[in-house]
């Protein structure tokens, strides 16, 4: 081993060598978003049940009301980040070919941003009635 390599600590040499090439940040964020996700999912199930079979006008009014809109926005943003981390984890587990992995990770990001912003836009439009 060269002298230059010995200057690095044991941790420094292995850091970033895992499948995801990063640390435990996303592991922790996945836990935070899962705790929030439990409460938000229950709230969204209640909202959906309350809106079943209601007229379009009622649905617009309820989804655009502040508390419901804020719950929906929190749900969307929280779950978008949660599923972005989740699919990234699946990709780095199963896709080993560099170019395909890069393409998959990019597709994951593009998909999550597109679906997430589509939902956020819809809730803003329902709230501000443009």
């Amino acid at each position: 081993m060269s002298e230059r390599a010995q200057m690095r600590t044991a941790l420094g040499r292995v850091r970033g060598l895992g499948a995801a090439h990063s640390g435990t940040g996303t592991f922790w964020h996945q836990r935070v978003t899962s705790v929030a996700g439990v409460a938000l999912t229950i709230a969204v199930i209640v909202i959906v049940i309350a809106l079943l079979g209601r007229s379009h006008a009622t649905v617009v009014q309820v989804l655009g009301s502040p508390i419901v809109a804020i719950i929906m926005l929190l749900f969307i943003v929280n779950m978008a980040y949660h599923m972005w981390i989740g699919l990234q984890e699946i990709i780095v587990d199963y896709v080993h070919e560099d170019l395909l992995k890069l393409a998959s990770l990019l597709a994951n990001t593009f998909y999550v941003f597109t679906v997430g912003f589509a939902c956020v836009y819809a809730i803003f439009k329902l709230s501000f009635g443009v």
Partner: protein
Amino acid sequence: MAELEAGATAASRRPRPLSPHLQVYKMTLTFVMSGFHRITGFALYFGMVLVAWWLLAAASGPNAYAYFEWFAGSLIGRLVLFGYSWALIHHMLGGIRHLIWDTEHGFEPAERELLAMATIVGSILLTLVVWVIGYFAMGGPR
């Protein structure tokens, strides 16, 4: 790496043993539930499109919303939504199981089995409860 390759012998160039993957392990309930958690998460990832469709339809107007309601009320739509709701509840309960494990509890054999059974039975029961409540919210038998 240069010094490594210079010192390589016939033995060191042999293919290294790979860690075993899924197929070498005996099927257990916790093993299957681990797979279910990943598969339901994967399904929910794409299921978010339904949420986006619902919200965009509501934001777009009565015609777009009527079209979404037609799909949601159709046989295929109901099957998809039933599967979506089960996947959502199953993944949520499976996630709670993981959060319990994160606190370093529930690792004993009996506890693991109990948590796995609670997840699958609980997810089916809760999904049925949600649909029965939804059925009555829509006016019940008419």
